[in-house]
């Protein structure tokens, strides 16, 4: 297995929510900030921010 294959596997686990973040938390001794939920919220937020800007542009036209 090469590095890219390992990246693919890790990606798949994270996207499926199977990455064991609890184990990771034990090592880091901190709360894991970058969870799948965090990115879902970030995505929503970023796409929402774009929508009003697009509407404003359309109104100006």
């Amino acid at each position, binding site marked *: 297995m090469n590095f*890219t294959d390992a*990246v693919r*596997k890790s990606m798949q686990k994270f*996207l499926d929510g199977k990455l064991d973040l609890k184990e990771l938390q034990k090592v880091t001794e901190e709360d894991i900030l*970058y969870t799948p939920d965090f990115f879902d919220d970030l995505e929503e937020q970023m796409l929402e921010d774009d929508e009003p800007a697009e509407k404003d542009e359309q109104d100006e036209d």
Partner: protein
Amino acid sequence: MKINPRPTLDGPIPGESLTADTRNYPWHRPPEITDYNEGITRLITDMDDEREMQLIYSLLELEVPVAIITSNILMRKIARGIVPIDLGILMAGPVSRYVEILAKDNGMTADMDTSIPGQEPITPTMLKLQMGTVDDIQDLLEEGTDSPETPVEADTTTSGGLMGAPSEEDALSASDEEQAAMLGMVDEDEEEQV
């Protein structure tokens, strides 16, 4: 211990590796970041750099899979000694997700395929795609039971092309007399007259 009877003079001195400076390469030194949260924050911050953004958008526009883009980003960080390899692999998921968000934010579609080439799972859908529908397979089986088709005879009438056989019209054949002359079958008297 087996002693080499002919030691090479240009070989390493025993224990030389222990005396070499291991600080020559960034990945020989302790990494800059070993914390998961800190590592991702650093990567996301670096990805917000204009030059880095241009690279990511260009790759997304070329429809490069996100796994390859993520691998590229992480490999550069590992090579510079910023994150260790194991942490890099753990960070692959969040980094790829962020790349996907960037793509969506710019109206692009990100290829999030994570299947390893050559190791795709065998599914009924995949088999259907590879072999066609059930009707197609039945048609193929029915065709197989018919008598074999008669072989198509090669078309010898047409000619042409640089490597094609010359047609009868184009054939440059010597006349009978010329052929006889070439074979030395001409009478000596006739030769003298000429």
